[in-house]
């Protein structure tokens, strides 16, 4: 189990160095992405102004406060509360995010499925689990909402966050076929019969 500190963006070699069970802290830049963002990007053909190559995206839709654009704030927003949503709904966007946009890391909660695990293996990527529902803490890792794209989708726009010490996150799916979720799910399926027998419901 290794702890990695990764200033974003990263290379394919760096992401293939991550193993399920390792921990990661991200630095510098993180992009926030959501259901509607990806539906518009991949089903409706909209393109983003951001260069996501080598970057990490987090499954989120933040609570924001409108502020004046000034200095490095090109978004007109400041973060009130930024947390993480359930990733499973966005399973089918993993491969296009990686193939078309060059994304290397997806951060979320609850895990992704086999299709994503194959994409991580084929292209070079990883899924990092953050503790869902711990958004007050997560917000302290966000320095600024630097920029926004597809802002009409607020709060499901594409956000560029400046981050500091974003983690520790758990490598839950890697580019070598490792998935902590698959391991836990297989174990639950294995225990099911004994659980039902004890309930008198086998």
């Amino acid at each position, binding site marked *: 189990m290794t702890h990695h500190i990764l200033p974003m963006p990263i290379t394919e070699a760096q992401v293939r160095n991550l193993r399920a069970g390792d921990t990661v802290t991200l630095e510098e830049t993180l992009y926030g992405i959501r259901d509607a963002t990806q539906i518009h990007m991949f089903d409706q053909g909209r393109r983003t102004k951001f260069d996501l190559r080598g970057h990490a995206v987090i499954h989120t839709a933040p609570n924001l406060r409108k502020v004046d654009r000034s200095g490095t704030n090109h978004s007109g927003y400041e973060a*009130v509360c930024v947390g993480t949503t359930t990733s499973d709904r966005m399973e089918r966007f993993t491969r296009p995010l990686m193939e078309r946009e060059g994304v290397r890391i997806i951060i979320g*909660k*609850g895990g992704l499925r086999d299709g994503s695990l194959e994409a991580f293996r084929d292209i070079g990527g990883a899924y990092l689990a953050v*503790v869902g529902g711990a958004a007050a*803490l997560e917000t302290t890792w966000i320095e600024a909402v630097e920029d926004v794209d597809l802002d009409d989708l607020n*709060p499901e726009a594409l956000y560029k966050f400046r981050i500091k010490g974003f983690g520790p996150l*758990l490598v839950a799916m890697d580019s070598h076929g490792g998935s902590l979720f698959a391991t*836990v799910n297989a174990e*639950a399926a294995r225990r099911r019969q004994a659980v039902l027998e004890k309930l008198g419901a086998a």
Partner: protein
Amino acid sequence: MTLMTKPGIEPLRIEPEAIEEAAKLLYIRACKILPDDIKAGFARLDGSETDATAKTILATMIENIGVAERMDNLLCQDTGIPIFNVLVGRNVQVDGWALKQAIARGTERATRDHPLRSSVVHPITRRNEHTSCGERVPVINIDFTDVERELRIEMIPKGSGSENGSFLQMLIPADGVAAVKRFVVDRVIQAGGKVCPPTIVGVGVGGTSDLCMHLAKVAATRPLGSRCADAEGAALEAALSEAVNSLGIGPQGLGGDSTAFAVHVETAATHITMNPVAVNIQCHSARRASATFTADGIRIGF
């Protein structure tokens, strides 16, 4: 003939303005301060958890509760679908239509003024009005109690990750209670980490299809430590609590003992041909806030 009150007893009158203020306050408070019974539930799970990763995750969740309170911030970014349970006691006078509008206005003001993320959209166009309101939302459930001169409003911001873990099956009598138990265990396995465990697994047994699902929601949002009033239901929730925590799903679905704080069961009589079961899940950010209106004033709690 008097239609409104018993002779000699002045009804408790509640103005819509007070309800609007309470609705606004409760939505924001619920998003920030976790009830004491949930905090105690975390301490209990943390004490009994044997998996190292699970212990780390529980510690992060407990730390987050403190950070939210110290920084006066939201526990979770999901402001949920706002649900208001209105419990009207005896000898209470309130304009029901005005009450519903006051709750919606309070919800909208909380969303705009704090500000909170509006998580509510039109179901077909997906348009977000940025008010946390829309057709039939906030969800308002009105019921009546036997408490004299008291009106209670409970606010629940119901997060979507756990709400998507909702399941109904119209089982039949020949399936028996064994099928009810299997349904709960299998749905907890299916939900895995997606519903943000450790959870409260709400189970509805009996009633009609809609009542059964409502019972599951009531069960999922009941305080920890409370028991099903029906003895058979109480026995079922004890057995199922042990069962789901034997599956190894753990906090966030990453393994461990702490899959659920508890399984809660609510029951209702059903038809001779029916055996409905529903599951509705509450995530670990099991948020609630309440305002109780009495002749002495307004009491804010969980």
